[in-house]
């Protein structure tokens, strides 16, 4: 019998249509993944099942949990179901826990609020579930506060809260999106194990098709509030019916062909770079400790080469990026571009700066909202001794906007008139406008939907051919780095543990950490389409 049955669910919020005739079934012990790009309505579907919709939401259709319709139930009954019959795991473990309460109290709260058992027993149960999710009380006492745990550990606490009363249905909304790839693999294993052990149904919301393909028994693909295709995982992968599904899978595994790089001639030389941060003192008069974010890193980037830098959060790749850009001085070693140091004395060297540009991750935070595009993309002209003016300037703006796939007319617009993908194009235009020798891409496609990401990757490949780009591509996403770079470096705890030809590293990793990374990264299965 079905555990959860969503039938023709339509939803509008303040009149805007969010979901259209969504239907889904979940059986006990089954994992159903709902996937799609941003704005597809997948998260709203999850919230609708929990009946935790934002104000002004009007739902129509039916959501049946074990045969009982949840829509239009009185709030008191819904509260009795939430946490007991249904549990939910959220995307952002860093903020999903109350910072001023201990993890023990927060797990026990699920039990106590439903008056399921007396306090002492609830405590024992909390210890039991925390142990089950991998946080045994001898190492993680109930008196810990969330800020004392890592992101992955916090997500385990959230899972413990959700399963404390053995709910029939677990809903996980992008449960691993905010986590590193190795942690993601562990959390996914945990979820799979729990489903098997408790015979729960799992409704898993994720944008990551590789995760979907590896986890789910059934898949539903959503676009703009509609389920465009659904089916058993194996069938669906073998035989995709809807063009959108096909496009989505193709874009996820999108490969580009880079032009051949010229013979090696060093451009950027990083030698023995050290960057340390002071940690707060321990005790009243203790000596402050230092954290080496970047630990004696050396590498060379050749002219015309596309170099990747991968690593998990906190490995020091952002710090290294800032040091290369000359935003922060280093404590040891040197960074030289074209034989000139990035820092002279303690001041950034303008002669070097004008040879470098950067594209950041966040398409929304990368631009001053008060300036027009023309002013935004010409900001690097500040680095030139004689920046172009008048019609020459107009021509450069038009040329750049055209090169990144926008039109010259866009120069007069403000940034909020553009989508995320268009903004990233504008960021690339800004980086290209002074024809730098080197561009740093700092997680430049990480915030984008897969279809947009594929387009930006294509654009990069085209620009490589047109402008002979040399770049350093910093990313946590192995699949992207694999296709967009010639050579790759793997960073762990401030050090570069392995570097080499991209193909070589991925097919035959030498360092154990590299191997762990590649192993943990979920991969798209063969889909019957020609993606490689």
């Amino acid at each position, binding site marked *: 019998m079905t555990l959860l049955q969503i039938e023709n669910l339509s939803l509008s919020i303040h009149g805007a249509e969010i979901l259209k005739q969504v239907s889904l079934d979940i059986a006990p012990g089954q994992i159903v993944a709902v996937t799609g790009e941003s704005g597809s309505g997948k998260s709203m579907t999850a919230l609708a099942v929990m009946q*935790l919709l934002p104000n002004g939401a009007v739902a129509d259709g039916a959501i049946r949990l074990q045969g009982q319709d949840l829509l239009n139930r009185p709030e008191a009954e819904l509260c009795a179901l939430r946490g007991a019959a249904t549990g939910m795991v959220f995307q952002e473990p860093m903020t999903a826990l109350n910072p*001023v309460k201990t993890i023990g109290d927060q797990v026990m709260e699920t039990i106590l609020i439903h008056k399921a058992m007396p306090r002492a027993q609830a405590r024992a149960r909390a210890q039991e579930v925390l142990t089950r999710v991998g946080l045994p009380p001898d190492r993680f006492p109930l008196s810990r506060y969330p800020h004392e745990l890592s992101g992955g550990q916090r997500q385990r606490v959230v899972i413990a*809260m959700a399963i404390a009363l053995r709910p029939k249905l677990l809903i996980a909304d992008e449960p691993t999106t905010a986590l590193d790839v190795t942690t993601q693999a562990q959390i996914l294993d945990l979820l799979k194990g729990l489903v098997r052990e408790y015979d729960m149904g799992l409704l898993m919301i994720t944008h990551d098709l590789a995760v979907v393909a590896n986890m789910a028994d059934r898949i539903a693909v959503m676009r703009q509030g509609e389920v465009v295709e659904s089916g058993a995982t194996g069938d669906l992968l073998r035989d995709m019916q809807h063009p959108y599904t096909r496009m989505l899978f193709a874009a996820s595994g999108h490969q580009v062909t880079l032009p051949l790089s010229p013979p090696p001639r060093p451009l950027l030389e990083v030698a023995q770079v050290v960057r340390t941060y002071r940690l707060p003192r321990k005790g009243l008069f203790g000596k402050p400790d230092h954290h080496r974010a970047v630990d004696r890193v050396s590498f060379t980037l050749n002219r015309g080469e596309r170099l990747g830098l991968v690593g998990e959060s906190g490995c020091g790749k952002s710090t290294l990026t800032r040091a290369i850009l000359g935003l922060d001085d280093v404590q040891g070693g040197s960074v030289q571009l074209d034989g000139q140091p990035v820092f002279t004395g303690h001041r950034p060297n303008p002669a070097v700066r004008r040879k470098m540009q950067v594209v950041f991750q966040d398409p929304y935070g990368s631009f001053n909202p008060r300036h027009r595009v023309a002013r935004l993309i010409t900001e690097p002209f500040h680095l030139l001794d004689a920046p172009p003016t008048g019609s020459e300037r107009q021509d450069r703006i038009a040329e750049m906007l055209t090169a990144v796939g926008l039109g010259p007319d866009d120069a007069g617009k403000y940034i909020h008139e553009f989508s995320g993908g268009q903004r990233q194009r504008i960021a690339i235009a800004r980086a290209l406008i002074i024809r730098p020798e080197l561009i740093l891409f700092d997680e430049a496609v990480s915030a984008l939907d897969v279809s947009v990401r594929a387009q930006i990757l294509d654009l990069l490949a085209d620009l490589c051919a047109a402008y002979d780009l040399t770049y350093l591509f910093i990313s946590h996403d192995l699949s992207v780095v694999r296709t967009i770079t010639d050579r790759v470096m793997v960073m762990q705890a401030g050090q570069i543990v392995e570097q080499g030809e991209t193909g070589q590293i991925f097919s035959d990793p030498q360092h154990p950490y590299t191997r762990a990374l590649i192993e943990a990264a979920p991969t798209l299965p063969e889909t019957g389409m020609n993606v490689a």
Partner: protein
Amino acid sequence: MLRYAFKRLISLLISLVVASVVIFAVIEVAPGDPASFMLGVNAQEDTLAALRAELGLDVSNAQRYLDWVGGMLVGDFGTSYTYRTPVSQMIADRMWVSLPLALYALILSTLIAFPAGIYAAARRGKPGDLTVMGATQLGIAVPNFWFAMMLVLIFAINLRWFNAGGFAGWNKGLWAGLHSLTLPAIALALPQAAILARVMRSSLLDILGEDFMRTARAKGLTYRQALWRHGVRNALIPVLTILGLQFSFLLAGAIIIEQVFYLPGLGRLVFQAISARDLIVVESVVMLLVFAVITVNFLVDLAYAAVDPRLRSRT
């Protein structure tokens, strides 16, 4: 935690030293010599010199500063130029009016503001919220001394529930003392309560948007339960800041309100001292007020740590 408290304590001491230097320096540049002011224009030069020696005015500025601070540390605030009595005694007498008044008002304001703010947040956008918000909007705009006058007009002159002014004194019993401080405390508290209630509400509403509130709801807590169990304590963090700031406003406000009710508090003392150019009294009262504000802010910093475990463990 210990390190945090220690750091705050050091910064408290530095603030006190700098504040005392500032106050001393400002009073020092005062034109005119207290001795000649006290004795009038016709005073003999040797009488003046004798008085200066008696008042301790005949030594270097640095020495006088050290004497002043050193004296305060042992409770000796010097001698009033006009009354020739110890300033510490004058302050001690008046303090028993001003301090209870400020505390009374602080308690009233908190008792009104917390429930009002939480109530409004719980009923966001509904008539109850709009009423509370309208009332606070008005409350912020009302000058407390004018409000005090209106209270006198209504409750003292027309209804005769309270005396229009004066202080019964604590020796007539706690009730008599509190009774004569009630109207002043209400006048002080309501405008502050309006501000506090608004801060409480907006701080709670910010918290309501946090992810962990949604987590709490997903566990099966009702909206109210989530608000009380997870919202209020987190919302307290910004509210504490305002509470600390309000104490200084209440102290200052008390000085003005004392004028309305003819209360023999620090306010009366300081205005009398200003008109008599009794600068040592002004200096000492100001130092005391500043000391109180700095100390309260120190306590607020410690209270943060009690509320927020992240602060406790940072060092």
